[in-house]
């Protein structure tokens, strides 16, 4: 593919055009990121009077701290569950909507609404529904003989935050899956039908493989979302509890830094998160560049 090259007559112009973007990147990303890295090598005493350079001590401590290791595995469970649940449901809905002809746009519009809801609002919404005393969901579960209480049960709490986080992300996944499905020529499914494959077999042997670029893209986006964008949800519902059961990495950064005021450790944690994001981004770009799969 040929890209169009624009030649500027004034050599300063391109830099001037880039300057605002670069300034924003510098002020809101590079500068704080640099500060975080610097801070992660420092330790303040309890009264904030003295700051000393401790090298990688903050990182080493983190790796020995049971709460941090717990948070790592909680994050893993949370991110994977959220991604699987949200993508699975979205794919199901997209496949259903793709079959509709006239009502497709109406369903699409309705299904996109949750995406417009702010994370904290979504959290509060579901928090009410799952509220052990007044929530409709906990009432229904009680009727089924399950004693729901996310304030006491770590599993219940995890299930709740996964549901909230997945619910919010379904819209996004749905849109991508629907677009992906619609870009698969109809004649492929027809050819497969003539070739003797039933609807389920067609879906798994023809449609799903052709959706794999979309699926992979969404997987990375969803993991990033679950790991970093769900702060509001956790904060509005469980606040990391009960007893650390839903304390994911981003929430722990906030807790240790702004509540525990352990700035060095908090900075080290955010540097680790930054490395994870960079890793995921690299995977994504590698993939997008090659556009493999089939």
């Amino acid at each position, binding site marked *: 593919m040929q890209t169009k090259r624009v030649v500027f007559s004034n050599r300063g112009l391109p830099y001037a055009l880039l300057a605002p973007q670069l300034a924003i990147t510098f002020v809101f990303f590079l500068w704080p990121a640099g500060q975080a890295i610097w801070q992660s090598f420092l330790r303040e005493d309890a009264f904030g009077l003295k700051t000393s350079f401790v090298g990688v001590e903050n990182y080493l401590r983190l790796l020995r701290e049971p709460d941090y290791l717990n948070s790592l595995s909680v994050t893993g469970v949370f991110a994977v569950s959220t991604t699987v649940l949200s993508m699975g449901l979205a794919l199901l809905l997209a496949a259903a909507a793709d079959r509709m002809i006239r009502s497709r746009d109406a369903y699409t519009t309705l299904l996109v609404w949750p995406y417009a809801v702010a994370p904290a609002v979504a959290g509060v919404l579901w928090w009410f529904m799952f509220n052990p005393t007044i929530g409709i969901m906990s009432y229904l579960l009680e009727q089924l003989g399950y004693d729901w209480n996310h304030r006491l049960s770590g599993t219940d709490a995890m299930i709740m935050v996964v549901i909230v986080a997945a619910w919010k992300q379904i819209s996004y996944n749905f849109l991508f899956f629907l677009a992906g499905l619609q870009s698969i020529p109809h004649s492929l499914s027809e050819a497969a039908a*003539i070739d003797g494959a039933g609807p389920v077999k067609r879906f798994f042997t023809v449609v799903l493989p052709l959706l794999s670029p979309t699926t992979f893209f969404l997987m990375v986006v969803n993991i990033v979302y679950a790991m970093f964008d769900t702060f509001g949800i956790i904060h509005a519902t469980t606040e990391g509890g009960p007893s650390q059961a839903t304390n994911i990495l981003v929430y722990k950064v906030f807790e240790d830094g702004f509540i525990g005021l352990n700035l060095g450790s908090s900075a080290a944690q955010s540097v680790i998160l930054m490395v994870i994001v960079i890793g995921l981004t690299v995977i994504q770009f590698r993939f997008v560049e090659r556009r493999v799969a089939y």
Partner: protein
Amino acid sequence: MAAIDLAGVKKTYPGNVTAIHPLDLNIADGELLVLVGPSGCGKSTLLRMIAGLETVTEGEVMIGGGPVNKREPAERDIAMVFQNYALYPHMSVRGNLEYGLKNRGTPRAEIDARVEEAARILEIGPFLERKPRQLSGGQRQRVAMGRAIVRHPKAFLFDEPLSNLDAKLRGQMRVEIKRLQRSLNTTSVYVTHDQLEAMTLADRVVVMNAGRIEQIGKPTEVYERPASLFVAGFVGSPPMNLFGTDELKTEAGGSLPESIGANTGTIGIRPDAVTLSANGNPAIAVTGTIELIEPVGGESHVYLRLPKTDRVMILVVRGHEGVSLAADLTVHLPVGALHQFDAGTGRRID
């Protein structure tokens, strides 16, 4: 191998669009039948009803004598070649060929034998391990054909399979499809909007217009004795010259031969039937001015502007014999070569 019969088949799409008006069609075992007509006349709809990809609104589709309306495409034992080939992009050529056989639980040894056979017939052996995107248009076309023939189906259905190829390749593939169909002797229904393709391929041609059959017949019949005004205008290139009876009368100097009946509304003549001299046969003579000469190899298409009605007549002359631009020319329309069509119905009058 099987005959295909359509009895009173009709198709109405949602929104009350009638794409096919009730029609009957019998396709003999081993026959190559071509459905031809302008875009939107319902060719694909008819083919897809045979394939089972569209439901039949009314009537009955029969393959091998048995009704198949309620059968899924997979259960009809037909193979289809699509216009865009519809190759599975994530499978190798071999995977594409094997897919239909695997789904039907064909034993491994049998699959391999069939794939080898198809690869040999279509000369796609060297590409078996490639993905479709690594093939040229012509090679993809062959793979699509291969996917149809490995199945040894009762019938082949082709929906404009050559329209994505360039003219030269299209000509080659046309010959090859015909040869393949002859040697396999499998009942085939071939859809195209290209009348030349239809004429060269078909055992029998079905000319369709606006969801109805205009004429069914051998290519020569359809060309020599078009059953309606529509067929006359659609089949043949350059197209048949069609004049209103009054127009021709004016150009001919006020009178027409007696053989022109009272009901005749339109008179037609093929461009290659128009002659430069009467040769003693009864003919209508008209005079016009040469507006354009198109040399096409051994012959030329001459566009003659007739002064009184301001209509253009096309004629085919060998070489450039005696024609030059802007000159006046008198041509003869042999009475025996005239086609007459009814003023009311547009049907042929003999």
